């Protein structure tokens, strides 16, 4: 049971949500957007997230959009099950199919996973690699930006800013990809590490969750993996030098084990997605 009380609002328009957020703040409240709400409820129960007002975004039409022309547009409030059922973005679907379990995916949303406090945010990996763009709403208006520009460890949202949609070029959706989630055990649960890769213009691009306390894509790491002057093992060793933060050492696995698994996974990626021409 959540021990504290909060107001519950369910606006039906973006502007209404944004204005509500500011009005609640003016009343001295600490509002949060509530999408699937699963994180707010579970962290709220153990007082790791405390709020006195939630703004449910599920009735905002733009947050439930699904559109496809020269690019795919997915609303932030679509559930992970919705994303899977649409069958429009195989790379994202492969990532999403491994998040939580079938029933929980009926409630967890795409936007909720991207904006999560929980460190894995696995749906972000394909979005970073396909250079997807995001639509944000604030009282200044709507802004569309590449996700790579705004996702540094977590999505950098200004106070009261709402993630509305995610957009991906159809061309990027067609590119060859690879994604693997390694768990300590069982077929469901948080990852030891999840590594995603995409091949674009003869180069392999990589994004990782579960290695550090945030998901990331790192340019130097990718340059090392694509350095054809080096053997595969040398490329991997060079790439590991660019891990951007301390490697996690927790109940899912030690730091050394994570590195061991990462090396093997990167070897598989280079084999499957090419870039292995220089192995010798």
């Amino acid at each position, binding site marked *: 049971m959540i021990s504290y009380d909060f107001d519950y609002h369910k606006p039906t328009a973006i502007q209404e949500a944004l204005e509500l957020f500011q009005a609640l703040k003016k009343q001295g409240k600490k509002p949060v957007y509530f999408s699937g709400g699963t994180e707010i409820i579970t962290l709220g129960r153990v007082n790791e997230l405390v709020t006195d007002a939630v703004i*449910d975004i599920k009735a905002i039409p733009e947050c439930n959009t699904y559109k496809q022309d020269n690019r795919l547009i997915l609303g932030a409030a679509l559930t992970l099950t919705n994303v899977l059922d649409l069958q429009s973005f195989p790379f994202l679907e492969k990532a999403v199919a491994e998040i939580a379990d079938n029933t929980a995916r009926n409630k967890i949303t795409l936007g909720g996973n991207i904006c999560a406090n929980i460190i894995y945010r696995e749906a972000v990996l394909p979005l970073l690699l396909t250079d997807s763009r995001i639509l944000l709403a604030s009282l200044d208006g709507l802004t569309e930006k590449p996700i790579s520009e705004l996702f540094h460890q977590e999505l950098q949202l200004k106070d009261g800013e709402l993630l509305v949609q995610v957009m991906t070029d159809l061309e990027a959706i067609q590119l060859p990809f690879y994604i693997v989630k390694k768990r300590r055990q069982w077929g469901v649960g948080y990852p030891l590490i999840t590594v995603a890769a995409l091949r674009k213009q003869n180069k392999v691009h990589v994004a990782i969750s579960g290695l550090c306390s945030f998901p990331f894509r790192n340019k130097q790491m990718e340059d090392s993996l694509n350095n054809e002057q080096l053997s595969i093992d040398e490329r991997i060793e060079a790439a590991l030098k660019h891990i951007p933060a301390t490697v996690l050492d927790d109940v899912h696995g030690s730091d050394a084990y994570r590195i061991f698994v990462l090396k093997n996974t990167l070897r598989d990626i280079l084999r499957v997605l090419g870039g292995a021409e220089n192995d010798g």
Partner: protein
Amino acid sequence: MDENAITLSINGRDTTCFVRNAATLLYILREKLGLTGAKPGCLNGDCGACTIDVDGEPMKSCLMLAVEGEGKKITTIEGMKQTTIQSQFIEKFAFQCGYCTPGFIMNCHALIQKHPDATDDMIKNWMESNICRCTGYKEIEDAVKTALRQANQNTDG
């Protein structure tokens, strides 16, 4: 603690009750409405003991606020009468202590309704949402597969 009146459609009946906005649907079902079939387990979305049906989809009622249930068609284990999956759980001895059983049955029932042609992979994918501490899962698998076969025979005429 402030409570507001909401109306929920549960097992085919509209029920008005007073709830805190922060109350989960699981809590309201059990503590306010006396529908104790949905079980509290982990309260964290992991075990599936609290699974109910919301608009034809299995839902973990510990991951849902009661206020989110307004306007939705909610079915709990109490609303399930003589379904094939219930009979099959008995036939196949698919439970021991029974604590996980309502959650499993609600999930299996939604699967059968939504995907009467479910493949083995799909069955496994859906069943991974629930945990049983007693059975070896084999009996549960047998119950679902038999219920699916029966559902197909019925639709085949």
